[in-house]
């Protein structure tokens, strides 16, 4: 979205010449084309799923399932999108989810019931985000290194707390949230949380000064600083935000799996980065889209769902997943560049 505030120079003859208020229209058209191509990929997947497994795939329960399974990584991806938009990266999201989920399910924490689990998960996420943010913004560390260090230590700490054991949650109120009785008008509570986080994320990125600052820092940090933005404080806030999202995701994961385990959130960092990039967020920063990221997550979960419904084994799944990532990005590039 930081694409220059002047009309695009490469105006090919295919572009309809109707763009009178050029800047906003073309920008909107640009965003829409990206989103539309993602929707196209998703639609193609739905067709494939519908043809191969009509009864099981085209089913309300399956829609609920796909959205539920996507909600944990979805919340993480929203936070990741902000960080990447600002030109940073957060490799520690999976480890933070693991640490939060483990810390929130210790015997000591569970004694405080529902609130204890929720607050611990969120606070641990925020705490890790704070350390990341301080190291990167004020310690001058490269995000890749700082969050890599956090990845290692958070996983280590999670292992130390659990001792390799599976911590089973016995707080009924938490477990119930994952069951069908808790659905609100057919919508699982986890999906509601995912939706709320998405909407808030979208509003912050697109409709607030905070969002514009994030894009500015990612586009050109030095220019942003000269324009009067406190770049360091902005970075600190962004990693805090990512940590917060991890904390929320950890709570969702606790509801879903009914336990805390140090292996939780395995490779979330890669899934979240992949979803954001497929969605159209620039890895170099300066452009980010929450809508795209969420569509990226949905594409991934739908693929997994279709594979599982067709009883394809994990080797085939992995090969095809790689191919689809490449295909999705290529399709998107093409559609985006020809418009």
């Amino acid at each position, binding site marked *: 979205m930081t694409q220059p505030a002047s009309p695009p120079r490469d105006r090919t003859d295919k572009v309809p010449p109707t763009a009178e208020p050029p800047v906003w229209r073309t920008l909107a058209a640009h965003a829409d084309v990206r989103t539309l191509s993602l929707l196209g990929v998703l639609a193609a997947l739905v067709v494939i799923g519908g043809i191969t497994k009509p009864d099981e795939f085209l089913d309300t329960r399956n829609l609920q399932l796909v959205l539920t399974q996507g909600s944990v990584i979805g919340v993480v991806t929203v936070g990741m999108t902000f960080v990447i938009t600002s030109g940073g990266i957060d490799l520690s999201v999976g480890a933070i989810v693991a640490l939060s989920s483990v*810390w929130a399910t*210790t015997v000591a924490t569970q004694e405080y019931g529902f609130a204890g689990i929720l607050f611990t998960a969120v606070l641990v996420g925020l*705490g890790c985000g704070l*350390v990341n943010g301080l190291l990167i913004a004020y310690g001058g560390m490269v995000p890749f290194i700082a969050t890599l260090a956090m990845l290692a230590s958070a996983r280590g700490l999670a292992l130390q707390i659990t001792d390799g054991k599976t911590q089973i949650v016995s707080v009924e109120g938490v*477990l119930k949230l994952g069951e069908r009785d808790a659905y609100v008008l057919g919508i699982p509570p986890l999906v509601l949380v995912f939706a709320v986080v998405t909407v808030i994320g979208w509003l912050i990125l697109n409709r607030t000064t905070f969002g514009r600052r994030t894009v500015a820092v990612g586009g050109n940090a030095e220019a942003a600083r000269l324009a009067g933005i406190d770049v360091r404080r902005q970075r600190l806030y962004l990693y805090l935000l990512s940590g917060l999202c991890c904390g929320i995701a950890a709570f969702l*994961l606790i509801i879903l799996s009914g336990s805390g385990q140090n292996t939780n959130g395995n490779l979330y960092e890669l899934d979240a980065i992949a979803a954001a990039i497929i969605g159209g967020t620039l890895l170099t920063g300066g452009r980010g889209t929450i809508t795209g990221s969420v569509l990226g997550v949905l594409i991934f979960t739908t693929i997994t769902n279709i594979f599982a419904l067709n009883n394809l084994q994990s080797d085939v799944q992995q090969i095809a997943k790689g191919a689809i990532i490449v295909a999705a990005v290529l399709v998107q590039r093409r559609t985006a560049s020809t418009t």
Partner: protein
Amino acid sequence: MPEPKRHPSRTPVTSRRGLLFGTAAVSAGALVTSCTSNDTKDEKPASNNQPAADDKPGKHVTIGFAGPQADHGWLNAINDNAKNRAKKYQDVTLEITEGSNDTAAQIGQIETLINKKVDVLVVLPADGKALTQVGLKAMRAGIPVVNLDRIFNSPQAYRCWIGGDNYGMGLSAGRYIGEKLKDKKNARVIELAGLDNLELTKQRTQGFDAALKNYPNIKKVARQAADFTVESGQAKMAQLLQAQPKFDALWNHDDDQGVGALRAIKQAGRDDFLMVGGAGALSAFQAIQADNGVLKATVLYPPTMAASAIDLARALGQGKGIGGLAEFEIPASLTLYSAVVDKDNVGQYMATGFR
């Protein structure tokens, strides 16, 4: 991107960083010590209480024990079993190393034990093939090696191997399910496997399929692989339940991922089939005993093998055989039976369940 330095009042960058690192370290330390307690009041060590084969004290034996990092409930139980078993014997001293998944680190630890001249070594290698050389080295140095579970490449690298039976696990699960469903027409069975990258997962599946072949009325209709984690168990089970609206039995390779699988089953509101687990976790035993869900049985991959390895190591050190067998020496190889634990015998196994 270099950060702008706009605060002349601050100390130079290096010490500012130092301060930040210091603060981070201290706060991390404070976080660790507060509120991460995992102690339950009624916790008992996961180990068995049967008497040893030969309880009479004999020559003093120092046993060196090297295992992988206990990042999984089962491996943790392996360590506990070894420690508790060694404590039972007055004539045994156990030298236990810090567990490690790093091959080089584990080799170093075992070499240290060799240099300390322990009498017998018990080794659960992080990677059997990669640690064969150090096993050979110990044997050449005259220290007999008891190879636990993950087998070395060469029989020369160990005096005795003891371990579980993955193929047998599949057989036991398949037989149990087969007997339960043998009178049912067109019975449908599904399998929630472990990590497909591992040889042992393939063996478990082969055993399961072989056992089901004996029952022509039963068909395995779906198989998905999770990766031994609760999270993956929930995710894959949720998909399987959606894919198979109707089936009669489920075998899940691992009780740890079974925690997640059971959540998925509860979340989907399903209870129209029977489930068999694998490995023998405490939570699974408790569910089997309570008998209020789909989980009716589990097939063992017993962590008590570590206790038996200590027994074997002690017998080796004292030059004894196994009580109850005619031979003067302990066997070269012991494959443990994968017993089925169901409601009838679960009480007997409860103490061996791991968390």
